[in-house]
């Protein structure tokens, strides 16, 4: 169980001086390096590779991978290309937030088949069963339904 305590905000004159001396360009550079390091770490975890396995795939030493993941590495485009090939991604996708993957999609149409009101005690719990596509029941007193599945995609 993770500690759910919120992070403390700390401020000091020294930290404020350091931040003031950092230009916007430097801040953006650091942000991008950290973002890429985090993304790499996530990708390695998603593939369930160890750092050594990943190092072997990109032809580097494990210590170099540790440096990459520290967020201090200034990658060349050639290195990024090697990394992207190892993950079977484009270089651009290394910087993009991963999208959730659709693994199941089903679409159902449940149609009312009676429009005449039915006394409550006769209809409660009544079931209509479509043996080809599924079953359902409704306790709604004034209607029965038929159900059909008209699309289903799985990727």
């Amino acid at each position: 169980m993770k500690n759910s305590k919120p992070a403390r905000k700390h401020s000091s004159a020294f930290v404020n001086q350091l931040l003031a001396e950092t230009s916007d360009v430097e801040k953006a550079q650091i942000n991008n390096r950290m973002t890429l390091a985090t993304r790499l770490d996530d990708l390695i975890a998603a593939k369930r590779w160890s750092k050594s396995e990943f190092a072997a795939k990109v032809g580097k030493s494990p210590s170099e991978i540790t440096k990459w993941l520290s967020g201090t590495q200034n990658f060349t485009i050639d290195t990024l290309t090697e990394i992207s090939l190892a993950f079977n991604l484009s270089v651009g996708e290394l910087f993009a937030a991963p999208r959730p993957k659709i693994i199941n999609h089903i679409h159902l149409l449940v149609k009312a088949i009676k429009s005449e009101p039915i006394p409550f005690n006769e209809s409660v719990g009544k079931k209509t069963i479509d043996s080809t596509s599924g079953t359902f029941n409704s306790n709604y007193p004034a209607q029965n339904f038929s159900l059909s599945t008209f699309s289903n995609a799985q990727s």
Partner: protein
Amino acid sequence: MENIEPKTEYHLKGIELIRCTINTPEGAPALNFNFSISLQTQLDVMPRTLTVIVNVDVISDDQKNVFGSISVNNVYQIINFEEAFKLDAQNQYEIPPKLLEAIGSTSLSTTRGIMYSLFKGTFLNNALLPLVDLPKLKQY
């Protein structure tokens, strides 16, 4: 927390109401309510979640009028993600079918409750989302 074969530990992490609309028809109130239901399951690897997005449209007999619609995200946290979801030869995650059925049914039930709560007191008061037996849908 529940156990499903192969053993998957998960819990409901969040419920998000994305959309809810009610369109009151002109003239006589509708007698019949038909339902167009869509369930989409998404896998998000890094937060280790499965999200079931349930969209329901309450529609007229001729399916031309939408009386009301609702969209609900149901987010499930998978506790033992690495153990429960194996990677196949193509590096794709194998999701236990029974887990998909379980969270699909739970999400439909959750949406049914939210629908009832939101439509209560309107002309859609009786538009109860029917029970759907997902495991019996062959294609699910």
